[in-house]
């Protein structure tokens, strides 16, 4: 079964075409990195897969179903911009439990707490369980959001620039954890990132996006000079040169 299948997917946000004729197929168990400049439609693509945004044209199937029909427990999501109210009275455990119930709970049941603790343990953040959300650092908060996305053991995890705010050591642990989860659960991972090194190291395939699909394939193929130039406008950008040197793209 395909985890994700889109055919000529287009989406207009107001006057502008955020996504244009995206056709792709992501197999179950794959780790796909989505690269592209700011405003390329990467986060929008994830929101279409979540069923938050409806495509203007074309089709989208997630596990062979329309996104809104998919069991919400099958998809875990780590958002990009943390739009939370840091002044909201909430414990880290409660935020993780929203991943279980998709609502705020009045009373924390023992079973929910255990599930939340297990997810927190998985991301190395069990010690933060009873910490108020407002007192967490950016990196700690990222781990809590990741635990939230894993708490229902999803088959598909969508991550939107999840390593923002995490220190270098934490970042290594973070991706190691994702890899382990993918192997253990045979889960599919779609990661939106600006970090080309992460994409080339961890992803089975890379999707280069700038409103339209510019390249999609193994890191060495999709991150070719033509694709990156087409997406970013210049193949002489230091990151491209650096990457070319290290990964022979």
């Amino acid at each position, binding site marked *: 079964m395909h985890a994700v299948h889109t055919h000529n997917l287009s989406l207009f946000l107001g006057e502008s075409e955020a996504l244009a004729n995206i056709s792709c197929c992501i197999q179950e168990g794959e780790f796909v990195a989505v690269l592209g400049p700011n405003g390329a439609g990467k986060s929008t693509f994830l*929101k279409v897969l*979540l*069923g*938050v945004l409806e495509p203007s044209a074309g089709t989208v199937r997630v596990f062979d179903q329309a996104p*809104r029909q998919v069991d*919400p427990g099958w998809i875990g*999501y780590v*958002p990009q*911009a*943390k*739009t*939370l*109210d840091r*002044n*909201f*009275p*909430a*414990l880290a455990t*409660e*935020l993780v439990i*929203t991943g279980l*119930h*998709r*609502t*705020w*709970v*009045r*009373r924390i049941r023992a079973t929910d707490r255990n599930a939340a603790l297990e997810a927190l343990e998985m991301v190395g953040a069990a010690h933060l369980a009873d910490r*108020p959300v407002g007192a967490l650092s950016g990196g700690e908060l990222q781990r809590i959001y990741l635990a939230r996305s894993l708490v229902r053991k999803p088959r598909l995890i969508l991550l939107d620039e999840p390593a923002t705010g995490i220190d270098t050591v934490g970042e290594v642990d973070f991706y190691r954890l994702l890899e382990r989860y993918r192997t253990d659960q045979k889960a599919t991972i779609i990661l939106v990132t600006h970090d080309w090194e992460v994409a080339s190291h961890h992803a089975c395939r890379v999707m280069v996006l700038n409103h339209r699909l510019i390249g999609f394939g193994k890191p060495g193929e999709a991150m070719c000079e033509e694709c990156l130039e087409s997406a970013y406008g210049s193949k002489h950008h230091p990151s491209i040169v650096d990457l070319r040197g290290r990964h022979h793209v």
Partner: protein
Amino acid sequence: MFEVLALPFMQRALIAGLMVAFLASYYGVFVVQRGLGFLGNGLAHAAFGGVALGLLLGREPLMIAVPFTVAVSIAIIWVRQRTILASDTVIGVFFAVSMAAGIIFLSLKKNYSADAFSYLFGSILAITATDLWVAGGVVVLALLAQPLWGRWAYATFDRELALTDRVPVLFDEYLLSVLLAVTVVVAVKVVGIVLISAFLVIPAAAARMVVRRFATMTWLSILFGMASTAFGLWGSYLLDLPSGATIVLLQAAIFLACLLSVFAVNFARRTQQGEARQRSAAKARGKEDHPAG
């Protein structure tokens, strides 16, 4: 205290006051956490416009004020959704327009003053059986909508995250605003237009300072709101003071107590940390003076 309750008008005042306190402090937690303190004021002044229209038309003022205020609450969200204006700005516009309309409506009616003033400052001791039934109906409505607390709390915490979990955030915003508008109109008779926002804001704000969970904040806000209303009514009877104002001052006293308790806890924590630092510094000095081996 209890002989006061033998008086029928005090019984009605207490029941109405407790119902309004429950409603305002329950919805107040969302008002405070969403930073919509000004909305209470805006809706109260919209209610004034509705009451004035009712007086002008010679109808029961609250029956006109309910649809009028609900319409304004919907319009506030509608305009906010479709423009780049901030909530406070949109509320400010409707606040002023409703007030101006109310003044015009009253000026068109001749002998209006007594009625209008009772709505401005409330007349809790003149609550009728009909007022009680109306307030009771709004409480039932709040209890029926109570399963939505989790959704509202989730969207209050993180609107975008709630959207990705397919919470109907916009529908809930309209619904919450309409329920808030109805609550404000019911509360106008009890506490008056001038003081209603205190009922919405102070108990919830006091609770916020001393809790770590939103569920606890909700319960504590309701407790603060209802307790200040019961004791405020009793105090106003004993001291012969205006009831609405006495209740609000009691709420302010609770707010102050919570504020002081937060300061006290922070002070104690800092002192403890300072002592711990001193102890570890002394220990380190001791080690330097008498190095082992």
